[in-house]
């Protein structure tokens, strides 16, 4: 089960691919679709691999993506 997820603000993206390249688990790929500005934003190709580490968020120069942990409360409860 995925530990994290990402939120992508498609219209802010300028398609630099920093997030795609530096996601440690290769969760993302640039989509073939264009956003309104004419860039290819990223989309999630391997959701189960996302750790929610937010490295994508730290790399994104356009504040267009961020990662977050999910199910934190459940796992805490289980522990």
């Amino acid at each position, binding site marked *: *089960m*995925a530990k994290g*997820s990402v*939120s992508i*603000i498609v219209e*802010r993206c*300028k*398609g*630099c*691919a*920093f997030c795609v*390249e*530096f996601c440690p688990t290769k969760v993302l790929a640039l989509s073939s679709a264009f956003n309104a500005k004419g*860039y290819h934003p990223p989309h999630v190709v391997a959701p189960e691999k996302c750790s929610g580490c*937010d*490295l994508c*968020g*730290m*790399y*994104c*120069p*356009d*504040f267009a*993506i*961020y990662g*977050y*942990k*999910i*199910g*934190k*409360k*459940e796992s805490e409860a289980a522990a």
Partner: protein
Amino acid sequence: MIPVEEVATNPVEPFLRMERIPHIWCPGCGIGTSVNSFTRALIESEADLNKIAIVSGIGCTGRVAGYMKLDSFHTTHGRAIPFATGLKLARPDLTVVVYSGDGDLFAIGGNHFIHAARRNIDLKVICVNNLIYAMTGGQAAPTTPVTAVSTTSPYGCYEPPFNLPYLAAAAGATYVARWTTFHVRQLARAMKEILRRKGFSFIEVISPCPTLYQRRNKMGDGLDAMKFYKEHSKVKNGAPTAEVGLDIAGDIIVGKFIEIERPSYADVMRHQLHARLGDRYACEEGAVCQ
């Protein structure tokens, strides 16, 4: 269904003037990436955001102040440091960050940089070094590597560039580090460190400028620069700053080079005036600003 703990917003957003986003920076520009690290540093330093002021000069990097939701000053070209000096001396309670470009801080503003470092004014200076004067269209800067092409060095630059950490250390900076925009976590940690410490502190952030530096030098796009940083950066904490100069395609030595204690300008001033004037010295907090 997976129970989702929704994170309502990008963690950077509370620190930005969102009404001004999207920003002016190009696709693949590193300035925004450096801002991410800065905001993480603000979070982790647990600083009171109402007591942090950010001062920029002019340039692409100079626009950072205007995007940060802090007391922010977009000053004149080269003069962020003397503005910040006045602000800090008048308001010792404020944390004053200078965030600007390499041309701004080391060409037109170079004299101010060395004097603020010499005086040990308690400023946190973050220099985004994209190796070029970007805002004005890609002219050679005092950081442009030898042989690099710019609009004013069309046959390749032949001026030797500054080695910024060496310069900062020689002038008296008490903290000197260099990271690249690839090193987002290390950069955030370094920024947090300087937010928390006292004394003139300097971080050089090597950053892509795909539009104006790289294009003319056939160095690809922002991602290519980032990959280059990943492959060619060597972490050497404590490296002698004389040995960390950059050239056009060589390794980039990164790390924390210097961290020393030295009494700040304000401390030495108070000490000296007290020694000479005794009780006549009126140094109560807030004396400057009634």
